């Protein structure tokens, strides 16, 4: 493929002879064209080494430039931002804007506004699929410790639609169904009550508390909630849905945080405790040289936050968002993932 392209290029710029010459000489250098393996690997290693050297040189030059700029008291040259898939994401017109009046009106009218305006306290019912063992119950145990006012009910052989009816009667605001396959939780269904929506997530990378090194044990306080990067209308809606699972008045004394971080449509869940500690500041040489006098006079104390993970850890990926409560056959979907949407790596929906 690459070879073919190169040839084409060659054909196109025949006119400027100098460039072409350069190219052809480069081509001769290409290790992949050498048939003798020993020679090829030798040339390849040499080429690689050269590249590395050049890179180091560039880095050195860059560092020197920064240093010089600081010494001269100038602004250091701007740091280059690496190009990632996220910051080159496809332009999306559905991204929420803070000045969008309609968005706020829509928020006021949606299904979660009652809980989010604290007119109702969230009450969650957690249940499983019919056959459930091993990691499933352990995960639910931990989920119960994460979400306040959550109640586990055994699934039994009830249909989900019946459970929805039951939960509506008992004033639950949401149902979480943890689905496990081969004794490993692999999907999660969040149903907002009384009239939807229903989100279906794929659940992966589940790490339970006991498998996390140096894990902490959460307290019974209401956690704070961090929702990151839910940008589009769909993401906004999913974010609000997750928000409505938690009480809106966290106990800041508990210093407990639940984080839902969206990155490339994967929602990462982490659960932490944090603590603010005052620490003696170490004098390092850099500070001395730069703003020496200042640091000496100022108090040598600095507040730092330390985190301790409590678990569990898991990743969610949205598969579908259904309008109304669970109805797999006759339901209307607000969003379904379809394979024809996956034509670009840089298109994200949340």
């Amino acid at each position, binding site marked *: 493929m690459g070879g073919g392209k190169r040839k084409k290029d060659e054909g196109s710029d025949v006119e400027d002879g100098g460039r072409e010459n350069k190219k052809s000489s480069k081509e001769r250098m290409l290790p992949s064209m050498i048939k003798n393996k020993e020679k090829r690997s030798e040339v390849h290693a040499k080429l690689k080494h050269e590249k590395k050297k050049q890179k180091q040189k560039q880095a050195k030059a860059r560092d020197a430039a920064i240093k010089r700029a600081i010494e001269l008291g100038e602004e250091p040259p701007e740091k280059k931002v690496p190009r990632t898939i996220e910051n080159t994401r496809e332009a999306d017109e559905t991204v929420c804007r803070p000045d969008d009046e309609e968005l706020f009106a829509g928020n006021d*009218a949606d299904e979660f506004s009652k809980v989010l305006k604290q007119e109702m306290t969230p009450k969650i019912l957690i249940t499983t699929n019919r056959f459930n063992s091993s990691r499933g119950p352990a995960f639910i145990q931990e989920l119960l410790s994460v979400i306040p006012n959550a109640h586990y009910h055994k699934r039994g052989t009830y249909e989900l639609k019946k459970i929805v009816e039951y939960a509506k009667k008992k004033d639950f605001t949401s149902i979480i169904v943890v689905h496990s396959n081969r004794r490993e939780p692999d999907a999660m269904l969040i149903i907002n009550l009384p009239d939807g929506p229903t989100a279906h997530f794929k659940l992966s990378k589940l790490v339970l508390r006991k498998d996390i090194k140096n894990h902490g044990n959460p307290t019974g306080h209401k956690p704070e909630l961090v929702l990151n990067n839910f940008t589009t*209308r769909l993401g906004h809606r999913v974010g609000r849905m997750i928000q409505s699972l938690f009480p809106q008045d966290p106990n800041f004394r508990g210093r407990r945080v639940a984080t839902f971080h969206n990155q490339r449509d994967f929602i990462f869940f982490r659960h932490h405790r944090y603590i603010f500690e005052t620490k003696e500041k170490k004098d390092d040489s850099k500070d001395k040289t730069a703003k020496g006098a200042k640091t000496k006079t100022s108090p040598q104390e600095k507040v730092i936050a330390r985190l301790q993970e409590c678990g569990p850890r898991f990743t969610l990926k949205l598969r579908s968002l259904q309008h109304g409560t669970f109805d797999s*056959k*006759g339901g209307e*979907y607000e969003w379904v993932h379809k394979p024809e949407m996956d034509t670009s790596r840089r298109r994200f929906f949340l």
Partner: protein
Amino acid sequence: MPRTIAVECPGCAPLRALTTDVLGLVKVVEARGRPGILKVVETWGQPDASSSVLAASYADHKTEPLLAVARKNGLVDFINPLNGEVLNSTKIDQSRSSDSSVQDDHVAGLHLFKTKGHDSFSRVVLLLACLEKGNACLTSIAIKDQPQDSDICSPVTWNVCSAGKILCSAVDKSENYALFGGKGVELNLWDLENCSKSWTAKPPPSNNLNIFYPTWFTAATFLSEGDHRKIVAGTNNQQVRLYDTSAQRRPVISVNFRESAVRAVCEDIDGYTVYVGNGTGDLASFDMRTGKLLGCFIGKCSGSIRSIVRHPESSIIASCGLDSYLRVWDAKTRQLLSAVFLKQHLTNVVIDSHFSDEGSGGNNCDQSDYLQVRNDTEIMDDEEMPSKTMKIDDEELVPIPDKSKSSKTKKPSGIEKKKSKNRNRYNDEASETFESEDMGELVPIKRKKSSKERSKSLEQKKSKKAFGQ
């Protein structure tokens, strides 16, 4: 460099569409200029969840068009679709259900009569509204408050069904017959003149596994414009059914479409194609003579389709739904022409067919060119046909300048090819069931004669020919 693929939308002919959404807003979307990209031009109304629009109907007159919008709080607003002025709003009669269930009883279907009861002088319109609990109501309403309301007849109310929930309703082109169906309600055909039930469907027998699906119609429409006897309905168990009221009570053809409930059905003007949208956002066209799937409309549509509407003249359809996008497709090539994000869950879309881009004269002739090409290729059997439609276009639109004829060859060439290809395929599929001349006749009659004459003549013709058999 990041390799991003720009989605190529070729743009559509000048178009004006109105959408309604769950917050009660009415948005006007227009496509202007050469590559007509849809844009939101105006937004009418205040966002309010209680005034969420459930049904809308559009009287597509050349002068004084009217948009009726039924809201969740029981009001029906009459809106001037040109400037958004609310002309009148009335409460739909809920006297029958005066008990506590009033709140649950919403408007399920609304139809504004285009030919009957429309009096442009006093601006009295006839309106058919259907409530979920089964009450249908036929009222005439004066749009402008006038002292004399002598000619306003009292509303006629009748009960369509005693149990169940009505979800869909339709009125045929001659506006003599209405159709109702829903959850637990078999399709009913009603004669509007004397408010009598003329036909009821019968559920199909249970299948070979003895599985019987309960009645649950989610969408219905009349198949061809001049004929009230062919009905296409979509059900909750993914079926698209064709009923022939003159033949039998059970469906003539029943086709399964994908794995989600059918949510919207729209007929084409050719009298045999229907467009079907379902709960997962799949949109497809079916040939109802054979029940064959002609093809799907592919364009990253991810939310349930709530409404499909076809442009009365050019071969364009518009669809909208829960993914908040209004999409405009070419009905024949099934290509996405343009899409616009409208921020709310949309419930209905209507097309203003009398819109023409007055900004530039070129577009008008472009549209008529397009029309002519379509007619040329579609209805080649009838030789005098193209000239006829051209004449009508001339009346409706701006007279075509001479240069347009020279520029005609520019656009059509590609389209013509495709069209002719399509046509061949239709003919293959049509096999012996439909004579091609039959289709040729349908269109000119529709354009030429007044509605009553048309319906009568078509009825006579149709009665001679059995459909699909």
